[in-house]
C-alpha cells in the first residue's frame, strides 16, 4: 500500500529525539508539510541530508514544516536506534525534528520505500509530491530542486509539473 497523489496523509503520533510528540494534526493551518523518511546509515540519505536541512531553513519563514522520520529496524541496524538518532541530533544542527517510527506503521501507511523518500502534503494534508529531493544525490548544486519546486507550487496554489519522481536510496529496513 502506498499513499497516492491527492490522498490525505495518515495522521500519526511519533516522538522526536527530544521526547516531544508530533502529529500531522498539529499542523492544521500550515501551508505545507514535508515528511521525509530518512536514516543514519544510508549513504543516499546522508548525501542529501544537508540539502533537506537547507530546505527546512529556507521555507520555515513561509510556514513549511519538515519532519524527518526514521523507521529502520534498529535491532538489525543499531546505527538507526533511537539512541543513535539522539546522538546525531545532539552533534549536528537540525532545524527539523527527527522522529522515531519504532513500529514502522507510519512508513507502511505512507508507503515509504527507501531513504530518503520525500512526501509533500498541502494545507489539507493531501499528498502533492512524492519522490526524491532532486535528480542527483551526488550533486549538492541540485539543492533539492524537485522538493523546492513542489513546495513553491503548493505555496502559490499552482499545479505541480512533477508530482512524482522515483525515490532513490537504501531500502527501508523492515522488521522480520
Amino acid at each position: 500500500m502506498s499513499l497516492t497523489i491527492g490522498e490525505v496523509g495518515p495522521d500519526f503520533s511519533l516522538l522526536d529525539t527530544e521526547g516531544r510528540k508530533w502529529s500531522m494534526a498539529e499542523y492544521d493551518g500550515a501551508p505545507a508539510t514535508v515528511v521525509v523518511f530518512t536514516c543514519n546509515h544510508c549513504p543516499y540519505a546522508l548525501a542529501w541530508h544537508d540539502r533537506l536541512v537547507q530546505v527546512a531553513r529556507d521555507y520555515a519563514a513561509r510556514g513549511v514544516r519538515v519532519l524527518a522520520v526514521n523507521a529502520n529496524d534498529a535491532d538489525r541496524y543499531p546505527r538507526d536506534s533511537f539512541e543513535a538518532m539522539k546522538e546525531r541530533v545532539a552533534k549536528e544542527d537540525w532545524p527539523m525534528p527527527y522522529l522515531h517510527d519504532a513500529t514502522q506503521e507510519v512508513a507502511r501507511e505512507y508507503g515509504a520505500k527507501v531513504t530518503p523518500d520525500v512526501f509533500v502534503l498541502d494545507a489539507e494534508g493531501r499528498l502533492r509530491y512524492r519522490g526524491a529531493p532532486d535528480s542527483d544525490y551526488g550533486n549538492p548544486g541540485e539543492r533539492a530542486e524537485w522538493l523546492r519546486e513542489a513546495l513553491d507550487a503548493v505555496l502559490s496554489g499552482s499545479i505541480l509539473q512533477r508530482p512524482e519522481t522515483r525515490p532513490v536510496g537504501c531500502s527501508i529496513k523492515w522488521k522480520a
Partner: protein
Amino acid sequence: MNVELLWWEGCPSTDGALTAVREALTDVGLDGVEVHMREIKDDGEAAETGFVGSPTILIDGVDLVPAAADEPIGLSCRVYRRRDGRVSPIPDPDDLREALRAAAERAEVKR
C-alpha cells in the same frame, strides 16, 4: 588480478559501482580485467564474507577501501567518502584508480 564486486539487492548503487570500476580499469590500462559479481543474499553470507555493505570491491581479495574495525557486518548500503569529503555510495574514482594501480604493481613485483 582478481577484481570482485560484492553487492546486495537492497542497495541501488551496484550498476554505478560496476561502471565506476570498469572505467577505472580502463583508465589504468587494465581493460582486459574482468569484474566478478558476487551477490550477498543474507546475513549468513554477509557474516561469512565479512561484508560491511554494498558495494564492496575486492582487489585480489583485499577491500579497496578497508573498513573501520567497528564497521558492522551486515546487509546495508556502504558509506564512502569522496576525496572532497562528500558522502557517496560509491568509492571516489581516484581511490579506485590508485588501488588498481597498486595491485597491478604488486602483481608485477611477484612475477
